[in-house]
Structures are given as structure tokens and as C-alpha cells.
């Protein structure tokens, strides 16, 4: 145990009644401590729960800290609590959402360009779900509406903030897929060697 012990009890009590992520700064104000002290106590608490294999955990999400159950007990909890929020996102919605997430703020035309398809309906439904919001206008594009992700988005996807998104580069198609794309769309004289199956499997699994 450390010098954080004094803050620990009050901190736990505050987190316990919170129904949204609370920032360390806010907790610090309430506890009349410095944000640094609170941050370190929070990290210690999270570690403590992990070490003791508690049924709950403390996580940093959407700009704040919040208590969650441990994922190991998901099935049990689902059986206990009426599971009311099972809304899944469609493939189209996920595609549009990832474009908005990585390119925000972005216009509808920007989303359309990446997806190759009109995304108006999908964006509207993402807005209804509270995952995407209007975030101003693009003056260089005839005042087109710009879209960004929301705090709810961060919460639903367990992200601390937008910079917490895995780098887009990590999702570049692998070499085989890229080669397949180039070659299939090329004209006759292009290379004559065979593309191995791995690119294949990658796609089929997702699409078929």
C-alpha cells in the first residue's frame, strides 16, 4: 500500500455512484487533491483490482474513469440482467463510422468518396445512435456539414480519446491483397505469376 491510501476510499465511493466516466481533474477538485495524485491513485486502484482478480475493474474511457464488470463474467451477467442493449451496427454503418472516426471532421462527400457509395442514410442512423454528430461547416466545400464522432462513440468502443484509435496504417491491406487488386485490374500484359491464396481467405471470410 502507498501514500494513496487516504484518497482511495473516497475515490472508490465517488466512482461507485458515478454513471458516466469522471475525469481525474474533476475527482481531484472534489477530493481537494492534485490531478497528479488522483491519477496515480486511480492507476494504483486499477492495478489492485487486477491483482486481486476482482469481479469489477477500473478503466479509463472517454476522457474519464469508470468502474466496469470484468469481461470474464459477461455470460453470467447477461443471464442475470435483462440484456437490453444488443443493438449491433451493420457493416455499412461500421464502414462509415470508421471513415468518420479517422478523418474527422469530414463531410458526407468525404465519406462517400471512400466507400464509393452514398452514405447519407448510414450517417443519419449513426447520428440517431449518438455515435456521430455535426461539427461545423466546411467553408471550402460550399458549407457542407462536417461530421465528428461523439463521446458516446468513445464510450461504446472503449477508447480514451480519438488518439487512442489504432493507427490507420495498421489496417493497410497486406501485400497479397494489394497485389491482387493491382493485377486483377490491370490489362493483359501484367505479370504472370500467381497470387497465393492468403489474400483470398482474408476476403472471403469477410464478404461471403
Amino acid at each position, binding site marked *: 500500500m502507498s501514500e494513496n491510501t487516504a484518497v482511495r476510499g473516497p475515490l472508490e465511493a465517488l466512482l461507485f455512484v*458515478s*454513471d458516466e466516466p469522471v475525469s481525474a481533474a474533476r475527482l481531484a477538485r472534489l477530493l481537494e487533491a492534485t490531478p497528479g495524485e488522483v491519477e496515480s491513485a486511480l492507476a494504483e486502484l486499477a492495478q489492485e483490482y487486477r491483482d486481486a482478480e476482482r469481479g469489477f475493474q477500473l478503466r479509463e474511457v472517454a476522457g474519464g474513469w469508470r468502474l466496469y*464488470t470484468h469481461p470474464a463474467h459477461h455470460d453470467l451477467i447477461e443471464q442475470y440482467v435483462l440484456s437490453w442493449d444488443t443493438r449491433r451496427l451493420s457493416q455499412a454503418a461500421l464502414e462509415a463510422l470508421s471513415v468518420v472516426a479517422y478523418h474527422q471532421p469530414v463531410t458526407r462527400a468525404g465519406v462517400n468518396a471512400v466507400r464509393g457509395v452514398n452514405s447519407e442514410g448510414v450517417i443519419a442512423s449513426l447520428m440517431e445512435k449518438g455515435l456521430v454528430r455535426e461539427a461545423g461547416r466546411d467553408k471550402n466545400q460550399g458549407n457542407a456539414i462536417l461530421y465528428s464522432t461523439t463521446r458516446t462513440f468513445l464510450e461504446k468502443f472503449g477508447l480514451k480519446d480519438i488518439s487512442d484509435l489504432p493507427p490507420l496504417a495498421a*489496417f493497410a491491406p497486406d501485400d497479397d491483397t494489394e497485389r491482387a487488386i493491382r493485377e486483377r485490374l490491370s*490489362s493483359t500484359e501484367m505479370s504472370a505469376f500467381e497470387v497465393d491464396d492468403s489474400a483470398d481467405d482474408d476476403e472471403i471470410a469477410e464478404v*461471403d
Partner: protein
Amino acid sequence: MGYNVKTDVFEGPFDLLLHLVSRQKLDVNAISISDVADQYLEHIDRMADLDLDVASEFLVLAATLLEIKASSLLPRQEAYIGDELDDLSPQEARDILVARLIAYKQFKNAAGELSSRMENENHMHPRQAGLETQFLGLMPDYLEGLTLHALSVICADLEHKREVFLLEAEHVASMPISLELHAESVRRQVSHSKQATFSELVGKDATPEVIVVTFLAILELYKRGLIDIVQDALFGDIVVSHLSPEDAAARGVAEEDIHE
């Protein structure tokens, strides 16, 4: 997520093309673009019952593919390529198509990652047990300024799984919720009945607050170009009518003021 989509449902032309492109092994000396273009057209053919909007998006790409195919069969010929790939040589169109397809695949991969993140997140349940009885008395008076119609809007939205999502929208943040909600309730009533009088909107026995907030809501909606108002006589009943975006444009409301 382990489900497979069995039918040929594609999220768009890129999705279909990507599927075709990566589906088959490349045979030695295969005329790839030709095969792909043909298969693409076959698929569109089978999508006969698609609505026109969706089909047209697939057709733009089909045209491009055909041009590239034609040019690969008839080398050296300058071909016309439609729409957004206008004025490009088949080679340039091909390069752009390849780049866009690669970019699309990248986001498709990212979407997969987001999906599994959401799935993981669903396995953790946040603390939301609510306050213990001893703290309940501290809750504020949330009925302040609330109208009955606003309550109806809230329930109607929930029914349709719409989240009433006002708090994070910067452009309404400075506005009290009750006015925003009330404006929305007036907009919906008028759009439902096409026309309503002020007295119908406020109802019988309205309190002064309701009268004021309804009046403000009407002014706000008028400003946004969503309704039209007519008052024939001094102190006469105000007739509020629904305005479609086209009507609004005709009335001269600047495009960017609509829906703001």
C-alpha cells in the same frame, strides 16, 4: 464476429469489386481486367431489383471497368470514361481505381477492428446502479420549463430507438433544452398535420409559459425555414404551415440555414 453473409449483399461498388478481385486465383496469362469486368456486370445483372439510386452507383464503376477493359483489348485508343473519372486515360482511371480500392479495403479492415472493439466492450458492464435512496432528494427539479408536448417527443423518439441527442451538439448547447425540444415538437406536429393554428398548438388552458415557449419555438422554426406563418388579422390566430425544403428554397431561405 462469426457470422457469414450468404447472399450477395455488398455495401457498394467497391465492396463488390474488392470481392471479385480477391476471390480468384490468378491464372498464368489470365486477362484479369476482362474477367473482372464481366463478373462485375453479371453481378449487377443479378441485382435487378435494386432501387435506382443504388444501382446507379454500381453502374458508374461498371462503365469505368468497361472502358479499362476495352482499352486493354484495343490498345492505344483514347477512350472516354464517364462521370468522375472523366478526362482520364484508361491507364489513369485504372490507377485511381486501384488506389481507391486499396483505401476502401483499409477502412473495411478498420471497420472490422471497430466491430470487435464494440463486441469486447459489450462484455463489460459499466456501473450504473443509480443513487442510493439517501441521495435521491438531491436530484434537481427536472420538470422546470417542460411542456407536455416535449414529453411526447421524448417518448416518440425512444419508441424509434432514437437517442435524443442534444447535449453534445455545439450549436444547440447554449439553448435551453425545453425550447429546443418544444421547437421540435411543434415542427413534428405541423409536419404531421401540414398546418396548425397557434391556438391548436398551445391547446386549451395553456399556461403563460407554454404560450411563450410555443411562440418562441414558432419564431425559431420560421427562422430555420422549416415552417411558414400567416396572420390574417391583428391579434388573429396565427396559421403555421409545414414547409418542405423545396418550398423553403423557393422562399429564398439560404440552403445552409435549413436544418441548422
